[in-house]
């Protein structure tokens, strides 16, 4: 199967602490923070959106891997916070990275897992010989309605993966998806903020799909979850991945490297992919990685990945941890300004 030949990440610089959001709404900050397992979240600036994040992550992927942009035959951007409802982000990325015009492109939407679906699509196209290299991006500037539980977790960030056969840094040994019609989180056409089904999002939604996809994949390849060196789950908060690891019998240590939500919030389409990137930043050749994404609505894509010795030459710059560390705190007022939640301002 096709492998990962390059990857890159981008996380906006602004951070808001859970404590600051809690202050505004009179919530108990310590309880919220420990309940969600989130300390702070990344916030896109007024001039950032899922397209600019996708471009920055893609540029980091291409520059770090040395992939020739002309070889990219497909660009797929997964996002639930598109700058245009109609008009692809993928064409913006294609032009900005120099992959256009001889390429196919589209935006994918599947809540938080559209990016990993892009990876699967690229794998199919590469393996079939349709394209030499595919670029799959997961990028979001997730929006929570003010004073909604999501406001504490909805973050901004993204990751880009180059899929191909030429000297992969990691082999994708297999992938398995589990998908059903489960409305746990949605945003209706023209609605500004998503709605969610509260505690319904846990058992019948996140856990059922994540665990089913993981178990399906493990059964298919004849492995146990704890056989992997690193495990990355979709991370809507800091707690769900820990619970998923426990249920699958994965040592708690093994999810730490790929768990970024406590420091940057849930980056939606970017979340599992940023987690995988953080693992690749430190993984050793022959390390094995289990990745399970989750998108509300609902579905999970599971991947069994094996790192090669090429990783040493093509680790992405800047690293996820460098991006996490480069931050500037803003208060709620500046958060409202940058995320354009002040309706009285007009256009």
């Amino acid at each position: 199967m096709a492998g990962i030949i390059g990857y890159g990440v981008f996380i906006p610089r602004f951070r808001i602490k859970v404590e600051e959001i809690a202050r505004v709404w009179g919530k108990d900050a310590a309880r919220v923070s420990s309940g969600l397992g989130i300390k702070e979240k990344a916030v896109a600036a007024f001039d950032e959106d899922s397209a600019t994040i996708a471009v920055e992550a893609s540029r980091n992927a291409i520059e770090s891997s040395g992939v020739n942009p002309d070889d990219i035959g497909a660009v797929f951007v997964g996002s639930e916070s598109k700058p245009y409802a109609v008009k692809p982000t993928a064409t913006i990325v294609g032009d900005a990275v120099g992959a256009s015009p001889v390429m196919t492109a589209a935006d994918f939407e599947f809540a938080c897992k559209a990016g990993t679906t892009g990876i699967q699509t690229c794998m199919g196209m590469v393996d079939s010989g349709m394209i030499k290299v595919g670029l799959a991006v997961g990028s979001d500037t997730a929006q929570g309605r003010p004073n909604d539980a999501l406001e504490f977790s909805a973050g901004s960030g993204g990751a880009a993966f180059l899929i191909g056969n030429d000297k992969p840094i990691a082999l994708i040994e297999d992938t398995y998806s589990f998908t059903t019609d489960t409305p746990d989180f949605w945003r209706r056409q023209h609605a500004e903020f998503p709605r969610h089904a509260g505690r319904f999002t846990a058992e019948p939604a996140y856990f059922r799909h994540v665990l089913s996809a993981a178990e399906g994949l493990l059964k298919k390849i004849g492995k146990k979850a704890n056989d992997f060196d690193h495990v990355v789950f979709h991370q809507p908060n800091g707690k769900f991945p820990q619970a998923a690891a426990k249920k699958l019998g994965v040592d708690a240590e093994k999810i730490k490297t790929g768990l970024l939500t406590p420091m940057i919030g849930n980056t939606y389409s970017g979340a599992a992919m940023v987690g995988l990137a953080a693992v690749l930043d430190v993984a050793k050749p022959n390390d094995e990685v289990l990745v399970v994404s989750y998108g509300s609505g609902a579905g999970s894509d599971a991947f069994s990945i094996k790192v090669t010795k090429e990783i040493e030459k093509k680790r992405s710059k800047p690293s996820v941890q460098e991006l996490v560390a480069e931050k500037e705190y803003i208060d709620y007022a500046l958060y409202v300004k940058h995320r354009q939640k002040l309706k009285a301002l007009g256009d």
Partner: protein
Amino acid sequence: MRDALPLIWRKIPERYTLLGSHCNNCKTDYFPQRTICPHCRSKGKLVDKQMPREGKVYSFTEVHSGPAGFQHETPYFLAIIELPNKVKVLSQLVDSSKDKVKVGAPVKMVFRRIFADGAEGVIAYGFKFKVVN
């Protein structure tokens, strides 16, 4: 200036990737692109050339009173960036804390929204710069 759709579209290679011009006759680089080399005129031979994406702050100002379309972004830094090939570029400086914005500070190109034609119109994307350590 709103509704500048053809103009925004036409400049995408320059705005997205800092594509400039190079005169094969006098070996000078230009950004933005030129049709005629101002030094060589009819003898000039202009070709496309990618500009370097890193440079230094040559001059800067913090804008507190922005024009329509930018009025809600204040205060913001506007700078002239000098690239290693001596080409100068005017750009907003973003993601750069006040104490790091200095003449001579090293900067690199980033990809950002430049402006949008209201809530329903087209979005212009392009280069901005940020101070790097």
